[in-house]
């Protein structure tokens, strides 16, 4: 009836309810599906919660601090303490807010990333659904998050929140294009949009075959996730906290959790698309997948601790004048190579690796000669202030 039949959690629950307890079929089906959802969603949110602690710890070490170390061993229960604190905080809705939309925004923010989980393979054979449009599905889901940002900004009834959300959406829309182009390159290479097929196609990890694609994906993803150096939405010095300004208590908690869980989702995507997913030797596949995801999370924290924030006009210029042409070069190179070798053997793949690294090494410095982010002040030409752009 559906791909769920292959799922071991599903069939275990199904058999327990239908055969052992003698329940009706529809109940067994529903409970089985619920069990799968419970495991996947809670596992994902648990990793997201661990990441909130891990990031504080890692960034702390980068800044010669200890990071959280009071609650539990190594402060690992800090996230729990934070959640409890947020739960007990007063729930404030501003008088000028649009109450309904104000309450809906956190849900609209978190729901798409949970929906996107459906197509993520966590290990050999463990996924909820293997859609033949997996990559596109994830992109569509991440696009809905920009709506949540707009809703939050508008519903807060606060000018700074609105300004922050307008900036955020301008940035999200701009970076979605290079992101999708990078994914297009992967789709061309693998000849499929299904996550499982993409992992199967990687006899050489795609991070080697398509270094430009991986770089563009990393940069565009950190913009999509509102992470430094692209975190203008919450630029404290300019906008208080952007669209989050008016949120408190658990509504803020949901936004916070969604933000961190989205980084985990991005890590899972990077592991699948560029690092050969769960495939590697010796260790069990789920463990490999977790190791790769946490590797990505560490790099994400590293970037956060290292790079300063960019100005909004620089960010948009960077997306359109630098990343976009770079992604076109990437797609063109991969398409030509795929036409030349429709079904590449091991050696041909390594030749592709060499060519693509050469292209990357040439294209990145060449483009940076042409594009200037911070234009030098010339007489008679005014540099627009960031507020005037958005």
């Amino acid at each position, binding site marked *: 009836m559906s791909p769920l039949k292959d799922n071991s959690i599903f069939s275990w629950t199904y058999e327990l309810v239908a055969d052992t307890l003698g329940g009706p079929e529809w109940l067994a089906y529903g409970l089985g599906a619920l069990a799968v959802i419970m495991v996947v969603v809670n596992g994902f949110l648990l990793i997201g919660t661990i990441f909130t602690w891990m990031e504080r710890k890692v960034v702390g070490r980068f800044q010669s601090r200890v990071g959280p170390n009071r609650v539990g061993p190594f402060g690992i229960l800090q996230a729990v303490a934070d959640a409890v604190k947020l739960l007990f905080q007063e729930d404030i809705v501003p008088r000028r807010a649009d109450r309904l939309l104000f309450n809906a925004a956190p849900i609209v923010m978190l729901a798409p990333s949970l929906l996107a989980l459906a197509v993520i393979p966590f290990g050999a054979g463990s996924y909820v659904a293997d859609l*033949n*449009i997996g990559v596109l599905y994830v992109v*569509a889901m991440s*696009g809905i998050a920009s709506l949540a940002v707009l809703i939050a900004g508008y519903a807060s009834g606060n000018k700074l929140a609105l300004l922050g959300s307008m900036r955020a959406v301008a940035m999200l829309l701009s970076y979605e294009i290079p992101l999708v182009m990078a994914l297009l390159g992967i789709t061309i290479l693998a000849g499929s949009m299904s996550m499982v097929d993409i992992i199967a196609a990687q006899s050489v990890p795609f991070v080697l075959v398509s270094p430009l694609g991986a770089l563009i994906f990393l940069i565009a993803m950190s913009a999509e996730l509102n992470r430094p150096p692209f975190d203008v939405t919450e630029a404290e010095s300019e906008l208080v906290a952007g669209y989050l300004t008016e949120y408190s208590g658990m509504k803020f908690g949901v936004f916070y959790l969604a933000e961190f869980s989205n980084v985990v989702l991005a890590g899972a995507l990077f592991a699948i698309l560029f690092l050969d997913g769960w495939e590697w030797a010796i260790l069990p596949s789920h463990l490999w997948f977790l190791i790769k995801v946490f590797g990505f999370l560490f790099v994400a924290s590293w970037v956060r601790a290292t790079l300063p924030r960019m100005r909004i006009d620089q960010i948009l210029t960077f997306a359109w004048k630098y990343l976009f042409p770079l992604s076109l070069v990437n797609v063109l190179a991969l398409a030509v190579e795929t036409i030349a070798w429709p079904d590449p053997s091991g050696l041909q793949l390594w030749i592709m690796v060499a060519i693509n690294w050469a292209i990357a090494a040439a294209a990145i410095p060449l483009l940076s000669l042409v594009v200037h982010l911070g234009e030098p002040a010339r007489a008679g030409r005014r540099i627009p202030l960031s507020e005037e752009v958005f």
Partner: protein
Amino acid sequence: MENAFTEVAFWTLSIVTVGGALGVVRTHNMFRAALLLVVSFVGVAGIFALVNAEFLAVVQLLVYAGGVAVLVIFAAMITTNVTEGNRSTGTQPFAVLVSLVLLSALVSAIVQAEWALLPDDMPAPLAAAFVDTPAALGRMLLNEFVLPFEIAGVVLLAAVIGALSLVRER
């Protein structure tokens, strides 16, 4: 069971779609109207998914719910009074007339079209196309329908250039 599920899903999605669309015209809050439009788009995507057109469903979400709706919201925010709506310009009767004509044209087209039901024993290539719709659509777009596809591209390019020349600093 599958049939009952399909019925329930179809009617739920239809109510969501039509209800959302009605909400768009009825509400005075421009921002909420734009969001109700998204609800309607999502309903349509659900109906696409229900008839096994997953690719269309996802594209519907990506382009309409993720792209077009956001642009509509941007445009709505620029209008003078987002929460109250704009003053009526007295063109409502005309708008009703146009929509009725459009609706009747669409309905008659749908009713009069000859919907070929797929045979149970489909020939292999046709059956394969239903399993892997994106690949089949891609081949058709770049072979049989390459001219319309390219024309659409040129039209979009013209729109981009037009927009740029409109906002260019003089």
